[in-house]
């Protein structure tokens, strides 16, 4: 299993916001352990909150990384707020909407809305807000301790590139690679 907790980027405004969706499927092994059957209680497969935090971190992390053409090593440094008011079950869709609140050389702060889409019942087809995840990211190469890291960007690996390509954002990567080799200037963001 690959560590990808978003399926598709569905909205992107450069330097401002990004939204991604994840379809929750019973084929995912982790749902069978969360929550497992206990005594006479049957198993209740629900999407773990920790993985929804990861989904928001991937969405917001790509957004933050895109600001500087993925040249910075962007890592999740702090979960400022993580609040969930409802569960997400298999067959439902999650939407992570991240927005940049602050962007500095050392890192960035993002706010995030988590929504759920049900495909049956009275609210079928309507997005429902179910949580908030505000995060902070650190730019590793700008860390306050002055520690040096390898030149290659190990944060934005092939998995993230696959997601970007599927969203039609591959130009963002290509431009970044060209810039890295030539001028070192910031890339021109692609449209979504």
């Amino acid at each position: 299993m690959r560590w990808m907790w978003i399926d598709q980027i569905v909205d992107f405004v450069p330097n401002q916001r990004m939204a991604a969706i994840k379809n929750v499927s019973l084929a995912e092994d982790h749902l069978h352990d969360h929550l497992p059957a206990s005594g006479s209680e049957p198993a209740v497969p629900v999407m773990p909150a920790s993985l929804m935090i990861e989904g928001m971190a991937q969405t917001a992390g790509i957004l933050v990384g895109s600001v500087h053409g993925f040249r910075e090593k962007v890592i999740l440094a702090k979960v400022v707020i993580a609040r969930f008011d409802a569960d997400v079950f298999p067959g439902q869709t999650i939407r992570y909407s991240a927005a940049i609140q602050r962007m500095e050389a050392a890192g960035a702060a993002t706010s995030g809305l988590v929504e759920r889409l049900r495909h049956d019942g009275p609210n079928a087809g309507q997005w429902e807000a179910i949580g908030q995840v505000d995060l902070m990211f650190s730019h590793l190469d700008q860390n306050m301790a002055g520690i040096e890291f390898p030149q290659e960007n190990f944060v934005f690996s092939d998995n993230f590139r696959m997601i970007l390509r599927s969203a039609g954002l591959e130009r963002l990567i290509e431009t970044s690679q060209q810039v890295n080799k030539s001028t070192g200037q910031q890339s021109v963001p692609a449209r979504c």
Partner: protein
Amino acid sequence: MPQASGTVAINREKIFDDVREVLEEALGADAEDITPDATLTGDLEAESIDFLDIVFRLEKKFSTPSKPFKINQGELFPENLMENPSWVSDGKFTDAGMAMLKQRMPHVEFSEFEDDRDVNKVGELITVKSLVDFVERKLRA
């Protein structure tokens, strides 16, 4: 003037309350633990990324439409201290390093640090009072 000093006292009290609110939100600290002498990294268990969070929150808290409260990188907390060999030798601040710290961080009390000078302990010098002094100094500038 009595009125002026009274105004200063009220303002500083308000600054302390706002700083305490920032630290409650950024560190999840209990209000009763956020005393003037409490250290950020020791008593309130702040980590390095929390410093950036605190900076963002202070800027938001004390900015007004007519006067933005902008904190430059390294202005509140020391950064990259090991980069300059004239500042640090064998893990201790040199005289030049101490002079640099005092010049860059007038909101921090260094008198008890003169004998120790351990570069790893400089973060422990920053107290809640340091933040209040920092904010008050910038607001008056």
